[in-house]
């Protein structure tokens, strides 16, 4: 198979799945006839080819996939006016604690937020496959430890947890501390 034909196959595979496809899976398209490095070249060719279109080829946590560019959303929203609901602040804070402090128990989340965590919020993110139980803390009651999934990273267009926006220090506390430290 020539490489133009192969690139068409890769492009078609990526356009027909919502799930990202890893390099290893892409190599399966050709029954191992084409090696992953060559497929990587095709992916970068495809990325250039699509540069001037409404979609872009991106690498996320579980592989490669196309996504629409943000500037398209204005138009696409007119076609499909029902938008997914925005999450409440309580839900977002819970998600942020799990994302930034994982793995955490429900108790950890409650300590940080200062209020009880509703089971519904955890269930909601679990059913969206954004969080999952990755173990149990070895304390009385063996509470579940929650962490984010690769689906969460994919849906937020990130390839790893380190792509999360860095936490900001919100107060002069740390500046002062630094000064104190350097003073001693």
């Amino acid at each position, binding site marked *: 198979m020539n490489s133009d034909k192969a690139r068409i196959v890769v492009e078609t595979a990526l356009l027909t799945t919502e799930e990202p496809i890893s390099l290893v899976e892409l190599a399966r398209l050709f029954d191992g006839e084409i090696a992953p490095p060559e497929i990587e070249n095709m992916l970068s060719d495809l990325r250039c080819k699509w540069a001037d279109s409404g979609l872009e080829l991106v690498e996320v946590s579980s592989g490669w996939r196309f996504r629409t560019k943000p500037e*398209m959303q204005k138009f696409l929203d007119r076609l499909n006016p029902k938008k997914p609901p925005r999450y409440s602040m309580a839900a977002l804070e819970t998600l*942020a604690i799990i994302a930034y402090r994982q793995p955490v128990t429900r108790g950890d989340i409650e300590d940080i*937020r200062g*209020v009880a965590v509703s089971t519904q919020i955890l269930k909601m993110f679990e059913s969206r496959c954004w969080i999952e139980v990755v173990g149990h803390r070895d304390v009385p009651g063996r509470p579940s430890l929650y962490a984010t999934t690769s689906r969460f990273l994919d849906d*937020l*267009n990130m390839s790893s947890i380190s792509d*999360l926006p860095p936490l*900001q220090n919100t107060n002069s506390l740390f500046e002062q501390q630094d000064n104190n430290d350097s003073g001693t």
Partner: protein
Amino acid sequence: MIVAKIHGEAILELPQDLYIPPEALEVVLDTFEGPLDLLLYLIRKHNLDILDIRMAELTRQYLDYIDVAKQRHELAAEYLLMAALLIEIKSRMLLPKPAEIEAEEDPRAELVRRLLEYEKIKQAALMLDALDQAGRDFLLPGIPRDWLDMPELPGIDPEDLRQAWISVVSRVKMINPHKVELEELSIREHMARILKKLQGLDAVEFVELFEAGTGLAIFIVTFLALLELARENLVSIVQADVFGTIYVKANNEF
């Protein structure tokens, strides 16, 4: 006129939002995520350094706040717990410190640590919400694959056929070896091709069976295939007159 000094800095007028009218409290209460959120709100609204909380003022505002809320809401236990904590901190700060426990940590330290951690998470939550989200801020292509309902058919490759042939041949060899002979494949192929061409037709001119431009080898093979077809009585080759047109017809079309 200097109203107050904070960290030695002169404040010339009172912050506009220092006073919250009680009737506004109820509306605002629903927007708070809990006592820490409310405390943060009060501290930030006072433009105060979180590290240097004036406990008396903060506690008074907090208590005012939950007092109003209590009259109209079933107040969550966390708010009352926080009120108790604030009062405890305040009272510990009022007590004179005996010299021997001077090194004791500022009673506000733990509260400050929690407030800072919570504020960080609050900002993180907003940052998360600002990230592009699949289905909300961008869409994914998902062209349906039309044939997925079709049952999958077994795949074979030419080597499978060769193995199958070898298995037939070796079995036949044991029974009756002389019946199996190797034939030139391309003659067989052309025999099938000629029969297909003759299908449904009365007769085809002999020369039409030879495609121009296919080369001498193909001509010879086609000719041999024709002879073989005639030998197997699958076609008839007819020439009405000497040097007349030669016609080929399939024997099944009689």
